[in-house]
């Protein structure tokens, strides 16, 4: 139970919720606002994280430059898969995007010379060398550490994770505010009209295909930013981090919060983070009869049941409007 009051633990949960907020915000724009059933969202995260790590380790490019190129690569990938697939019906789009994402993951897993293979980015340099792409980020974070420690005296201000928490949520809030305005702009209204009735939007002279492509690419960029933060935070990643389950989690977040609502994303992410971390505190019967590894399975069962329950009883999520829901 002591962990329940442990600030360092909840800081870590907050970091994960922040990364998921940015990740799921991309999906909210694609799926919630525009109605695109993208089931390959994890691929954008993977492409950005790997592009950044490979450029830094193998090309010795500065981290910031590599990160910008990484976001560009993920958006370009979004454009390339969007061009042929966005004409498909929702369920077919879902199957196609998940197939694309699985191809990306298989390449990351098996092209060891390029990606480090199943060992992950630690093997990027080849041979027995341990590869590390993160030193520029850590010195940047170190530079911010001092003012943070002055602002928050005590243990918390000296925890590097707390600085990371502040950085991630600052970025997340800026992105949320931009997305909020974008969705209320004429551009956002066209996206919503496509979700409601694509033919009607087209009849009013809107190029629905082009708008859908824009939504996909913008969402890809957000997924890429989440992938970079994921890489910065953990200093190491490997292909299973980008399995379809990661995309499913983003759907759970969007659906918990509310489909189509921008500010539902951080709320969904925090609730999801608490559910995810909260199963750690299942130290009472019947859960205490289980080994701790088995409690991880219980956590996913709980998340699966929440997803089913929400879709059955409250498909608009906590904040969504029922009238806006066409799924």
């Amino acid at each position: 139970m002591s962990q329940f009051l442990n600030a360092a633990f909840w800081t870590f949960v907050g970091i994960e919720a922040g990364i998921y907020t940015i990740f799921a915000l991309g999906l909210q724009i694609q799926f919630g606002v525009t109605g695109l059933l993208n089931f390959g969202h994890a691929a954008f995260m993977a492409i950005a994280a790997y592009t950044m790590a490979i450029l830094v380790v193998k090309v010795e490019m500065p981290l910031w430059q590599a990160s910008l190129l990484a976001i560009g690569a993920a958006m370009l990938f979004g454009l390339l898969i969007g061009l042929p697939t966005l004409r498909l019906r929702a369920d077919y789009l879902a199957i196609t995007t998940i197939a694309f994402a699985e191809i990306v993951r298989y390449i990351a897993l098996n092209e060891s010379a390029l990606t480090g293979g199943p060992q992950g980015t630690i093997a990027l340099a080849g041979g027995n060398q341990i590869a590390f792409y993160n030193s520029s980020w850590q010195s940047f974070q170190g530079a911010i550490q001092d003012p943070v420690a002055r602002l928050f005296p005590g243990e918390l201000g000296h925890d590097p994770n707390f600085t990371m928490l502040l950085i991630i949520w600052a970025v997340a809030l800026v992105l949320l505010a931009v997305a909020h305005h974008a969705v209320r702009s004429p551009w956002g209204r066209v996206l919503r009209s496509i979700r409601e009735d694509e033919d009607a939007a087209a009849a009013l002279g809107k190029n629905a295909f082009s708008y859908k492509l824009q939504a996909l690419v913008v969402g890809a960029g957000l997924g890429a930013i989440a992938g970079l933060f994921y890489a910065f935070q953990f200093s190491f990643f490997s292909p299973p981090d980008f399995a379809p389950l990661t995309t499913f989690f983003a759907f759970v977040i969007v659906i918990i919060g509310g489909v189509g609502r921008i500010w539902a994303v951080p709320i969904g992410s925090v609730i999801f983070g608490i559910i995810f971390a909260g199963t750690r505190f299942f130290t009472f019967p019947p859960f205490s009869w289980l080994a701790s590894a088995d409690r991880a399975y219980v956590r996913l069962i709980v998340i699966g049941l929440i997803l089913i329950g929400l879709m059955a009883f409250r498909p608009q999520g906590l904040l969504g409007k029922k009238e806006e829901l066409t799924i």
Partner: protein
Amino acid sequence: MSEFVQLLVNGLVTGSIIAVSAVGLTFMFGILGVVNFAYGDYLTFGAYAAFVANVTLGWPIAFAALFGMAATAALGLGIEFVLWAPMRRRRAGTVSLFIISIGLALVLRDVILLIWGADGRRYNVDVFQVYDFGILRLSASQLATIAIATPAIISVGLMLSRSRLGKAMRALADDRSLAAVSGIDVDRIAKATWIVASALAGLSGLLIGLVQASFDPTTGSTLLLPIFAAVILGGVGSAYGALVGGLALGVAMELSTWDAIFGGLDPVYKPVVAFAALIVVLLIRPQGVFGKARVL
């Protein structure tokens, strides 16, 4: 030449497993309009149910196969009662059902992990027993797969073409509203569909566990996208299309590793062949190679 024949036969064996499961998935998709992402986990459940019969209870593998089919059919019917039938009554849309099936997949997979753990399991058969047919070598598991999958495929074919139930199922897959107004009891056919499709999933789970020599809780979900590829290749809702699609895909996956074709792909990329086939068919001919042209 010998390598070609060997790969071809290996492909037909894997393909027949994909084919059997693809028939089940295409029923759900075509007849019930459910894009069932939990289908891979139905396969896994069947593999473990058969494992209980074969290893825990010591039954011979043929009886274990029947037990696995029955158990998975019961599971499928149970889920139809508590989940799909109520959702149908609420007129839930395709996307809602799709997302629900993902929640269901998480629940099934993690319940299996909770009960049986993450380690690989084996059936009580001699996986190292190999029969030599001159240019061709087949393992006991591959022979068992052929011996089990062939009658299963034939009986599904007969059921579809000859029985009243099969005709009603095909009518529903063709046009649901038209079938309903001509007096077909949609709810009853839906339940029958879940039983047949789940039994086929259970059987495929056992077969894939046999052919791969061992299986674990992710075995079924790993096969899910290749099964979807077979369904789409054959045209959604078409059982015969799914059969041919599954066999073609199995052969294509194996032959992709053949040296004579541009030096052959690394075998680790076999699933990618299926994913690529899925994408290409959806983009070029979304009604499937054998499907009728219709608006998708």
